[in-house]
């Protein structure tokens, strides 16, 4: 008979290398899909408008470079983690927090950043003489989309500097919760952002005359859609600053985990529905430019009301942390 009960040393190694690979695999998968989407669109656009080939290629290269941001950030962390020797089980287990904080946002943001590139390249084939401004709008929107990855990076940096102090299960769970909160919290807003920027890049292709208004509306709406990510980042940073005694039981760790799950899942619906609201507004703006004022205002008020749900979960998560501990 073979003994299949894993020893503690095996588990330590498993979690160490598991988290290292999870970061790269997840963000690489998302970035690869996003780049695939945009390259596919580039070939279709060249097929439709062969004369615009130089502009389309130039835009494609820049788009791919920005989509790659999350992969590069994850690569930095993979290298940092790879050269860290796992010392004990708990700190190795807590590395999963870094994997969640970088891997999940890397995956969703990689795909989400590909969608505006897809629509922008298609728009260039529609309006070849307007390619410069379409490209500028695409670069701005894509860079604003990267915000969750930067927050994930920040949280993982803070987790990384605390790995050496982890001595018990509660502390390890706390660090995992910190990563889980920003990781899961990025999913819903990323879906919303991807769909909205797709529609807004399409809208510039439909009606180039109101480029200025669409661009400012896009930036404002993106900022509003991203608000739930900021709330989960605040909860994440808050959890990562909690001090847990070496002698404490597992309970504080579970409270942190609960707060992280509340906040993470709470951003799901606000992010998605806020993005879809703004997407239909920007589509209407492209067809009825004279109604810009009323459409934009209605969309922003609705998005503000939708974000209130994220504020409720934020309050619940905060009270879990403050009262529960």
């Amino acid at each position, binding site marked *: 008979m073979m003994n299949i009960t894993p020893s503690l040393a095996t588990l330590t190694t498993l979690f160490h290398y598991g988290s290292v690979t999870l970061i790269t695999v997840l963000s690489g998968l998302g970035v690869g899909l996003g780049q695939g989407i945009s390259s596919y669109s580039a070939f279709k656009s060249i097929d439709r408008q062969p004369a615009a080939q130089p502009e389309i290629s130039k835009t494609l290269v820049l788009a791919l470079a920005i989509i790659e941001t999350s992969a590069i*950030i994850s690569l*930095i962390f993979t290298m*940092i983690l790879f050269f860290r020797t796992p010392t004990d089980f708990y700190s190795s287990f807590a590395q999963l927090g870094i994997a969640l904080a970088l891997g999940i946002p890397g995956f969703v943001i990689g795909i989400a950043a590909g969608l505006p590139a897809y629509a922008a390249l298609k728009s260039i084939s529609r309006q070849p003489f307007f390619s410069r401004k379409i490209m500028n709008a695409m670069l*701005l929107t894509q*860079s*604003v989309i990267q*915000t969750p990855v*930067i*927050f994930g*990076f*920040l949280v993982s*940096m*803070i987790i990384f*500097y*605390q*790995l*050496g*102090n982890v001595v018990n299960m509660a502390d390890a769970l706390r660090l995992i919760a910190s990563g889980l909160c920003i990781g899961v919290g990025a999913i819903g807003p990323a879906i919303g952002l991807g769909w909205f920027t797709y529609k807004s890049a399409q809208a510039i292709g439909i009606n180039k005359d109101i480029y*200025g*208004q669409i661009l*400012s509306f896009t*930036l*404002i709406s993106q*900022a509003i859609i*991203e*608000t739930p990510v*900021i*709330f989960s*980042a*605040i909860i994440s940073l808050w959890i990562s*600053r909690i001090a847990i005694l070496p002698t404490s039981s597992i309970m504080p760790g579970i409270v942190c985990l609960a707060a992280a799950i509340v906040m993470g899942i709470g951003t799901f619906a606000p992010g998605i529905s806020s993005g879809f609201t703004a997407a239909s507004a920007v589509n209407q703006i492209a067809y009825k430019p004279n109604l*810009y*004022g*009323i459409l*934009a*205002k209605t969309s*922003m*008020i609705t998005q*503000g009301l939708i*974000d*209130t749900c994220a*504020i409720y979960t934020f*309050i619940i998560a905060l009270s879990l942390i403050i009262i529960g501990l």
Partner: protein
Amino acid sequence: MGGLDLFAHDMWYPLSFLGFTHQFFGLNSGTIINTWIVLAALTLVSLIARYFLYYPGSIGGYLVKNIIISFQDLITQSLGKFVYKYFAFITSLFVFIISCNWIGVLPLVEEPTKDLNTTLALGIMSFLYIQKEAIFKHGPINYIKDFFEPIFLMLPLNILGELATIVSISFRLFGNIFGGSIIMSIFEQAIGDSWIWNTVTTISGINIIIMVFFVLFEGFLQAFVFSILSLTNLTMAVYEEPGEHLI
């Protein structure tokens, strides 16, 4: 391990002789010095811009005028008309934040916006200004009445929604600039003292590319987002009649 605390600041307690040694009364000396450096740089830039404006045909004068005109257009587009005090407020917010974000390119100087206190102060300032404008525009009674819309029970939610704008606007700026500066410092550490890496990255332009993206581009973008969000909140607060050309 565990040595570097990312939130550590050099603290200075000016009121300690009175017994106020709580963290609340401390000042982050590094942030204050950096902010003064930003203000000095801004003064220098505005003096240079003023010098250019005396020569109507110069390239510098053309650039300065173009920047001002683009801001005028932004205000006119958003508010439907040009209001000088709003233009002055939004433009100075933008100019101050962008110089705070870009001052990190100078050696030994760090971005003041890397500190949460600066961004929170900016957010609270913009919030208070907007509330003041709303009160002056609609009168105190209408202003308070707005909080009871659409029904009485919505009062706490409306107040929370207003306060949440401060949090979201200031944490957005803080998180992006802080993340960018950490990426830059990791890059510097990775190059380290090795002269081979220093030469290779300098000659190939990797240094410049990383700095342009994470400091200049990101800094510009976040400053723009901050000021345009303040402008939108302002527009929502001071609009006159529903259905008019608002945004």
